[in-house]
Every structure is written in structure tokens, then in C-alpha cells.
């Protein structure tokens, strides 16, 4: 059995030999690639702390076996900023106090980026809350998180309009 896989992680192609087919994407990122921004909360699909984008879609990395994702394009929190410039979603989380302890925050931000890409929420706070319900926050920073996602959506909409003009 060939247990090596190729992943593109934050734009960089990586060839990886897996010791065992049991390795999840979450453990691979954290333990093999030292990308510890992606957090392990429950490790069972309940909390969203491990959210990453796989081929552009937000997913729980704790339930995804690495071996079945050979060839995937992965974006983690480490790959979100553009050099020293924060992504609008990151900036909005800071502007709106979208966190307290910060443990859930990488997952929240990746989930928010995924939500905005899905284009289903827009600027309706109820749709944003529903769209973010897969990310729990033990500190209860939900009000700030919702504000941050709404602002990021507005900022991206405005940037898009500017580009179109």
C-alpha cells in the first residue's frame, strides 16, 4: 500500500509519506507540518476549531483522513494573510473583538471565509449566525463574531464594486 500523498498547503506543494492511514488532516497539519494555528477542540466534529478550507470549501479537518485527500488544495489560518496585510476577515475580527481567549478563532475565521465564499449569508445577521453555527466559542464572543463577519462581507462587497467600476 502506497501511503504517500501530495497536498498543496497554503500555496506550497508538499509530498508527504504517511506512517499510517489513520492520520487525519488535522494531525498532519499540526504534528507533521507544524501548522498549529488549526486547533483541536473536540476532535470529533462538534466544535469547528479545526476548520480549514479543502479545495476552497470549509471542512472539519479532525474527521478527514489525510490519505483520502491526496491531491487536495488546503488553506489554513497561516495562509490567510497577504504578507503583512491581514485578510479583511482577520481585520474585522480584531476591529469587532470577535474573540476573547482566541482558541476558537482560527476555526471561526476559516469558517467565515468559507461562508463568504459560499455566498449564502450576505448581510443578514440571522443568516450569518446560522452559517457560523458549526463553530462553538466557549468564551461566548458570538456577538463580536457576527459583527466581524458582517463587516468583512461589507468590505469585500465594497472592494468588488470598486473593482467593477
Amino acid at each position: 500500500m502506497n501511503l504517500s500523498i501530495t497536498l498543496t498547503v497554503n500555496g506550497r506543494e508538499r509530498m508527504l509519506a504517511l506512517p499510517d492511514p489513520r492520520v487525519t488532516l488535522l494531525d498532519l497539519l499540526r504534528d507533521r507540518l507544524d501548522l498549529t494555528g488549526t486547533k483541536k477542540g473536540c476532535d470529533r466534529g462538534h466544535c469547528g476549531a479545526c476548520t480549514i478550507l479543502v479545495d476552497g470549501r470549509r471542512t472539519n479537518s479532525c474527521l478527514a483522513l489525510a490519505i483520502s485527500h491526496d491531491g487536495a488544495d488546503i488553506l489554513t489560518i497561516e495562509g490567510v494573510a497577504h504578507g503583512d496585510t491581514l485578510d479583511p476577515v482577520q481585520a474585522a475580527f480584531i476591529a469587532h473583538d470577535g474573540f476573547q481567549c482566541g482558541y476558537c478563532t482560527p476555526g471561526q475565521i476559516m469558517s467565515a471565509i468559507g461562508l463568504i465564499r459560499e455566498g449564502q449569508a450576505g448581510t443578514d445577521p440571522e443568516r450569518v449566525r446560522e452559517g457560523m453555527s458549526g463553530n462553538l466559542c466557549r468564551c461566548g464572543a458570538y456577538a463580536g463574531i457576527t459583527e466581524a463577519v458582517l463587516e468583512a462581507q461589507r468590505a469585500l462587497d465594497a472592494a468588488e464594486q470598486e473593482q467593477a467600476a
Partner: protein
Amino acid sequence: MNRFDYIRPTTIPEAVAAASAPGAAYLAAGTNLVDLMKGGIARPSRLVDVGRLPGLSAIEHLPDGGVRIGALVRNADLAYDPGFARRFPAVAEALLSGASAQLRNAATVGGNLLQRTRCAYFHDVASACNKREPGAGCDARGGENRLHAVLGWSEGCIATHPSDFCVPLAAFNAIVEVAGATGHRDIPLEEFHLLPGETPERETLLAPGELILALRLPGTEAAFAAHARYLKVRERTSYAFAVVSAAAGLRLDGGRIAEARLALGGVALKPWRARAAEAALVGATPDEAAFRLAAEAALEAARPSGDNAFKIELARRILVRALTLAAAGTPARMPALPASPFAIGA
């Protein structure tokens, strides 16, 4: 997690052959199976990854108005397919009320059908569970069982089936297409899941190695699209399994009900089609009195399996409310909180 061999077949016959061996299991997205493996509840010795099998990822709109959904279609992709949501809005609403956006992006429709019960004792390997270990006993009897079944349960097992998606599928006569070692066959979804009886370890009609290829919703069922809803009561507004849910579809003609479709979720070990209630509605005017009579008929055989008598009256009320919503008409856009009673009017 136990050790296992990992195989990724490239054709359906290869997959079926590989999965027919004792101890083998299919892997789709793994959102249920990997979770169960981490808990030691599922211990397959071989995983047959079907995630890249060709031909199982399409949503096909059939000439008769029906839809054929490949087993590997992701829950989110099906729910957001505009043509699908137009023909089967209650199915889309049920999908969007399940799990979280992250999980729906990964989870496949075939895996959704085969997800295992959320009975806490089934998930705790230190507890006795007839489903996990035939003959061991059932710690849910006399335990924490307020969320357990009120219909179709047996002395041996009182668990429920957790899927939202399967509830409207049962109501709207979905067909499951499967491939096995001896060929293909069609199984009506209504018969696909088994009640526990004496053998709670047997959960579906699938034989070992049989692979789900697709689901079909018949074109005739699209006739309910103008009056079809899914309603789900859970213990928080979002991202929770159903306490009780209902799918309701009405075909109205001249102010009367020409035909009805009804199924309940969270009440039994299978999505519960309420045929007697459907029959009771035919010819009636769509009003609360008629809906209440139908709800009585649907729950006639219900009895508590523990501290869950409340679910019987809750189920009646959910049915009445789902029918009321269906009669009022399918909303043009899915509400912000799909299938939630708190979204009504939104």
C-alpha cells in the same frame, strides 16, 4: 482507532468485491465513520474508500421531473442546487437543517442514509448495547432516554435514526439504487431502514458489500413542491439533532387536499412514514381540525419507551405545524434558520 487497511478502488465491481470481505467498510467523507472509529464503536479492518469512484457525483434532472442523486453528492451541493430545491424544497430544507455548514460540505448523501444512531449508550463502549453487541442488553432502558423512540421500538432497542434528510425522502417515495456482487437493485427508502425487533444490530436491507449508487426521487413527487416543508425541533436553534421533526407535502385542488405526504423524524429507528395520516387528509379542507385528526392518526400506535411521553404530543404538534406551514405555501427562499420553528415568518 484500530488499525485498518486502506483501499481506493477505481471501479464499482472492484469496490463491491473489496467491501464484501468480513470486517470491511465503505468510507465516503468519514464524518460519521471516522467519528465512530475514534470512539472504538466501529472497528473495520479494511476501509474501502469510494470517494473517487467515477459516476457517483452527479445530480441528474430526469425527463419525468424527478431527480437522480449520485451517492457521493455532498449534502450542501444538493441543498443549494437550484433545480433540485425548486422540485423538492422540503428535502433541501431538511438537508440545510442538519449538522453544520462544514459537515454538510463534506458529508455525502449515501453516508447520510447510513449514519448510525446517536443513542449515548451506543456511543459509550462501557455501556451495554444490543446494537453494538447482540445479547449484551440495553442500558438505555431505564437510563437517560428522554430522546429515545416512541414508535416501532422493541424491548431490545429503543434508539432513533438521526437523519433529517431521510425524513422527506421517506415522505416523497425516494428509491435507493444499490449495486452488489450479483447486480443492481432498487430499494424503496421507506423499506431501507429496519425496525429493531429482535435484531437491532441489523439496521438496513443492505447485504454485506452492497454499495449505494444513487437516490431517485420520482417526478410525480415534484407535484408537492408548492406546498412542502420540513420542520425540526431541537434543543438549540441550530447544529443539533432533531428531538422530533416532520416533512409535510400537500397537493391542493379547489381548496381541498387532493393528496398528502407526511413523515416523522426522531421518533423511531427509521424515518417514519405516516400513511394513515396521509389518507385521513385526502378530501379535507386544509385547516387545523383536519391536521389535528391526521396527527392523531399518525401517533395512534405511539407509546413511551422511557421518560419520553412528551415526544408523542410534541410529534402531534409538529405535524400540525408542518402541515399548516405547507398549506401556507413553500417560501420563495429558504428561511434564515432552515426548518426551525423560530424562523417562521422570516
